């Protein structure tokens, strides 16, 4: 089980994953050796799974991001598998989530501009299998995006 020091490490590490081992130890006010051993232990236990670079798609020219909420035709037993397999093949789909609730699947789709989005929507999204209904939410702004766990 995690103790207060582990939680402190996770809080500081989440806030800035680019910290060096020395900087992280200093912010947690523990020795570098202790800090490193605990990080290694949490990695071995699968609590810290790794770190990933976050891409700013707008900086790459993808100005439009749309959240598509899809309801599937559940009378088809393979609807979920076939839909998600086909959606994975669309390069502009950057996130795929499945849900319990009114929405079955949500896709995050990026596009260069509205006409590119319209083309994607017609040619690649509406042609995905087993869609019963689809709703779009257009992104205006990210107010909070760090995805930090309140440990």
């Amino acid at each position, binding site marked *: 089980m995690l103790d207060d020091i582990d939680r402190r490490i996770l809080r500081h590490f989440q806030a800035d994953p680019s910290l060096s081992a020395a900087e992280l130890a200093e912010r947690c006010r523990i020795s570098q050796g202790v800090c490193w051993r605990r990080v290694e232990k949490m990695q071995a236990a699968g609590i810290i799974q790794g770190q990933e*670079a976050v891409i700013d798609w707008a900086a790459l020219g993808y100005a439009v991001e749309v959240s598509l909420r899809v309801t599937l035709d559940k009378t088809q037993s393979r609807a979920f598998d076939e839909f998600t397999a086909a959606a994975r093949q669309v390069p502009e789909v950057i996130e795929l989530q499945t849900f319990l609730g009114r929405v079955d699947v949500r896709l995050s789709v990026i596009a260069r501009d509205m006409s590119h989005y319209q083309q994607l929507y017609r040619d690649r999204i509406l042609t995905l299998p087993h869609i019963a209904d689809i709703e779009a939410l257009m992104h205006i702004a990210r107010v909070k995006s760090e995805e930090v766990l309140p440990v």
Partner: protein
Amino acid sequence: MTDLDELDRKILCALAQDASQSAGALGRKLGLSQPATWRRIRRLETSGIIKGRRLRLNAEALGFGVTVFLGVKLARKGQVSLEDFERAVSAIPEVQTVEHVLGLYDYRLRVVARDLPDFERVLRRRIMTLPGAGDVEANVLLSEERLPGPIR
């Protein structure tokens, strides 16, 4: 917009999966020297294409068994200040992300909780009491995949 060549795209793709690898290790995989790889990574960072790093934690192992996405509609639009709502909702620790959207809902929130009763507590005590919060729709996350996007 910055133009990326094939190597930049490969570097970006690799770092989006594992940002802890060193420039040397990554360069070896791509047949590039350590300094050349480092310069390219640096350029991706300074141009803002890599906007940061995110620690990947196992939420379940940390006791967060439930992730719920909430669609929130503001009540009495025009009378509530978006800034007040955004400030209040962003201050809730269990709310991991807040997106302002256009469509059926005004905001989309990602919320973590220990379990469903804990989620209900967050929803009733913290979300429903936000200034201006109206209709709320909840969908419980079952699975999630992040895909490499149009750089692969």
